[in-house]
């Protein structure tokens, strides 16, 4: 049954529920948790990218004062992380908990020192001596795929986890008859989310019951429990995973890591709690990397710029191992699917290779492949516009999907449910004042300055569930989320949700949803999450889906509880249940508002006066529901971004002057939180576009292992944002909601590349910006090329 009155909280900019404790320093993050008797773990990591492990001398470390135990690979040889895709031809990797005979990337753990405290553990770790015999390292895509490169895993044919290919029926005819074509090869630097809280976990094992408890920095507690169950060979009923406050995730904390398994195993061996807090240098080499795509893209188009066919060859540098629960195929698959983007493209031919290299394994990062896909298709649109001498906005408007196109079946088989692409592009040009930007650009050029304007449009699949994940070949098909709503005798409610809130504000937005459905005040709702013993099974928080799926589950569960309220109130008031309305603080008879029961009174009655309940009504107010946003093909959020930049011609440093976003994620539960997500995503995207990159030398040595080498945007790098919303509801979801957690991070690479290219476009030579991040060195290379000196970056 639907809510009976207009929403009080849905759509309201209410302040967040969790902020008081976080502002007071009362947040409880994993590093803050120290059970009695806890020991500290420190990992000894490989400083070779690829080597035979000839021996590890742990003798001196083992006898050091305060050291409890030093573990090496063979201690945990029965355990491994193996995540197998069902795609044909997928080659499996087994990631050891501690390295066995081989190390495959710098940062791979060789030994684990467990000691009285972190200081002692770090001292002892220095005493461990690993005898590593270096092997040639495959540090880039081409080297790894070269026929002369030995496979990195035993029994493999070559260094591709998987190769995939798809072509539409009419592609060959459309492409061969097209009057024009433009090709471009695009490179995205390797980087990741780099949350300010590093990874950490505290493992406990109770020898009496055999139960494990793991506090860990994760976005996906239940999936971690599933992965641990596989890796430890222990049923899930013996494993409790708790993700308390988590200091940012961005996808990096949505994988099972060997350290989590190692701490569990060590806790069991030692019968003591074992705690590990990653240091920042470890994070740069051992927490999962992301984003390193190379796309070769060709657009085939007619004289007015209408795209007739699209061709793409995608390669992703997945690092050394396939990660749980995503496998090593996720980025390649996602890029194949979404690369045609927001355009009316019918014919498409695409191939994708997920490449195994001697680098840190590759996992999820906000946007998963969509930033690279957006970069490719938007760079291609800019090149087509330039080829034909058509304006960048005009070329997009000629190809963007419009109202009559939905539902749109993309040439990769995605079903776009809805959108407002043309409108969002229009709106962002007004919001960001394109006219004013162009005038200021003209003035700046007159003064000899390099100012450019860039834009991009995208659509993103969000809240996709079973239908999507079953096609991704993942071992666990995660689609739904679960919520339990319980009203207690004092008339307050607890919402237990299978998602996790690590900044997204779900602790607040889910309370907003429940409060409206139950007619309660926000203060009467408590939202809990993160503990597998406390909340029902669900996948967790990733992929722009939690507000939609958990919001839907909360709606369903709260409505079931509200139905019980109606039923009992009807009985007490001698009215029909269908005539009862749930209002703020009470349940009344429709049309006769003086006949009502207060909700608190009803709650007390239901629990404490069961003899007064109608027949068949159980004395509890609790419901658990799952929600999968049927048909599961996704609710499509779209946005348009417009930015201006200025380049310092002497240093090559690019500064973002303005940034405007018009986003359409359907109806918003809390617009302030939506805007915070957009701003945060855009800033991370600016980092992707200008600063962030894990560089390696030819031997596979990482060159970015501190914040002095790996630059993230700081406050003075980021301008004030302009933001506006369109609200096109999804036909598939409860309330028409669409996901939006990742969107901000998708377009900035494309936007800033477009702006940098524009800033250089009046110089003598033509340059094509084809590489991110646009570090000062690279921009100087483009400036030199544009001036006719040198060959570019």
């Amino acid at each position: 049954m639907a809510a009976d009155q207009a929403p009080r909280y849905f759509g309201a900019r209410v302040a967040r529920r969790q902020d008081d404790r976080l502002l007071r320093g009362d947040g409880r993050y994993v590093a803050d948790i120290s059970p009695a008797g806890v020991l500290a773990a420190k990992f000894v990591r490989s400083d070779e990218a690829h080597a035979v492990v000839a021996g590890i001398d742990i003798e001196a470390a083992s006898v050091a004062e305060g050291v409890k135990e030093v573990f090496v690979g063979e201690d945990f040889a029965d355990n491994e992380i193996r995540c197998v895709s069902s795609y044909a031809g997928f080659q499996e990797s087994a990631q050891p908990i501690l390295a066995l005979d081989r190390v495959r990337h710098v940062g791979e753990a060789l030994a684990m020192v467990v000691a009285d405290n972190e200081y002692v553990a770090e001292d002892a770790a220095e005493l461990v001596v690993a005898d590593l015999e270096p092997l040639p390292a495959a540090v880039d895509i081409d080297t790894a795929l070269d026929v002369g490169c030995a496979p990195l895993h035993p029994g493999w044919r070559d260094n591709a986890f998987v190769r995939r290919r798809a072509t539409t029926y009419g592609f060959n005819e459309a492409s061969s008859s097209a009057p024009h074509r433009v090709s471009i090869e695009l490179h995205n630097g390797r980087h990741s989310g780099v949350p300010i809280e590093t990874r950490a976990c505290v493992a406990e094992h109770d020898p009496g019951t055999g139960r494990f408890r793991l506090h860990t920095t994760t976005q996906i507690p239940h999936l971690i429990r599933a992965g641990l169950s596989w890796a430890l060979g222990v049923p899930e009923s013996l494993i409790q995973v708790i993700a308390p406050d988590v200091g940012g995730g961005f996808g990096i904390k949505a994988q099972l890591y060997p350290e989590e398994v190692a701490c569990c195993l060590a806790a069991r061996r030692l019968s003591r709690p074992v705690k590990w807090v990653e240091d920042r240098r470890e994070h740069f080499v051992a927490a999962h990397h992301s984003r390193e795509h190379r796309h070769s893209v060709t657009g085939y188009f007619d004289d007015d710029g209408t795209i007739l066919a699209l061709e793409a060859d995608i390669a992703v540098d997945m690092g050394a191992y396939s990660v749980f629960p995503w496998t090593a195929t996720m980025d390649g698959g996602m890029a194949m699917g979404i690369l045609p983007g927001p355009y009316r493209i019918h014919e498409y031919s695409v191939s994708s290779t997920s490449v195994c290299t001697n680098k840190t394994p590759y996992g999820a990062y906000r946007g998963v492949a969509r930033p690279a896909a957006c970069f490719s298709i938007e760079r291609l649109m800019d090149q087509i516009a330039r080829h034909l001498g058509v304006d960048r906005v005009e070329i997009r408007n000629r190809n963007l999907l419009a109202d009559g196109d939905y539902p749109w079946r993309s040439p990769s088989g995605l079903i776009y449910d809805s959108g407002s692409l043309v409108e969002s592009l229009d709106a962002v040009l007004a919001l960001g004042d394109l006219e004013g930007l162009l005038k200021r650009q003209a003035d700046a050029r007159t003064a000899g300055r390099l100012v450019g304007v860039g834009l991009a449009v995208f659509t993103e699949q969000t809240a996709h569930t079973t239908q999507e994940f079953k096609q991704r070949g993942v071992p666990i098909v995660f689609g739904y989320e679960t919520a339990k709503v319980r009203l207690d005798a004092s008339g307050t409610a607890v919402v237990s949700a299978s998602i996790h809130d690590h900044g997204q504000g779900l602790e607040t937005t889910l309370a907003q949803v429940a409060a409206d459905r139950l007619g309660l005040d926000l203060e009467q709702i408590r939202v809990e999450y993160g503990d597998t013993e406390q909340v029902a099974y669900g996948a967790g928080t990733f992929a722009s889906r939690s507000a939609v799926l958990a919001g839907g589950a909360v709606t369903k569960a709260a409505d079931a509880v509200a139905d019980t309220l109606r039923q009992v109130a009807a009985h007490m008031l001698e009215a029909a249940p269908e005539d009862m309305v749930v209002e703020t603080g009470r349940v009344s008879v429709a049309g006769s508002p003086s006949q009502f029961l207060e909700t608190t009174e009803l709650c007390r009655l239901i629990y404490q006066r069961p003899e007064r309940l109608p027949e068949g009504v159980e004395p509890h107010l609790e419901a658990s529901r799952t929600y999968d946003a049927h048909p599961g093909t996704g609710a499509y959020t779209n946005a348009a971004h417009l930015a201006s930049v200025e380049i310092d011609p002497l240093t090559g440093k690019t500064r973002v002057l303005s940034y405007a976003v018009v986003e359409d994620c359907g109806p918003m539960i809390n617009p302030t939180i939506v805007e915070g997500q957009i701003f945060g995503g855009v800033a991370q995207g600016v980092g992707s576009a200008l600063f962030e990159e894990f560089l390696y030398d030819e031997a596979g040595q990482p060159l970015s292992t501190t914040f002095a080498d790996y630059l993230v945007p700081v406050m003075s790098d980021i301008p004030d944002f302009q933001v506006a919303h369109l609200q096109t509801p999804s036909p598939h979801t409860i309330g028409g909601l669409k996901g939006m957690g990742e969107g901000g991070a998708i377009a900035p690479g494309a936007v800033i590349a477009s702006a940098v290219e524009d800033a250089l476009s009046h110089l003598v030579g033509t340059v094509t910006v084809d590489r991110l991040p646009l570090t000062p060195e690279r921009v100087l290379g483009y400036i030199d090329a544009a001036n006719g000196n040198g060959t570019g970056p």
Partner: protein
Amino acid sequence: MAELSVSVNGELTAAQVDPRTLLSDYLRDHLGLTGTHVGCEHGYCGACTVLVDGASVRSCLTLAVQADGRSVDTVESLASNGELHPIQQAFKECHGLQCGFCTPGLLMSVLELAATNPGCGRDEIREHLSGNVCRCTGYHHIVDAVEAALNSVREQGDGS
């Protein structure tokens, strides 16, 4: 071991510590003041910022013994009688935090800013606070919050 006597949030604490003990570890592990967070241990991210005799320091780069005889303020000192400090209140009202991990260090930097330059505008705020990295917010709402906080501190005359 070294003798240490330091005032933390107005209370005198005394301990015997290994001389290499970091101030951040002293606060978190010895005193249980886990509001101070450690994000990089190389002095870059600013999450561990505390005030020593009123000036911001990276507690991950400061030895506990360097604070001997001095006065340290952490995020736990801000709220009083259960009420959020105006800076905390401004962060709450302006959505100036998401995951909350960088927040305590940022609040302490803002406290210093409120004491030293309460009249500064958005650009100066951005420059002054560029030593506190936030990965969640994109900074816009933080700058809103700091602007509001400085306003309210100025109004209350607490800023000098």
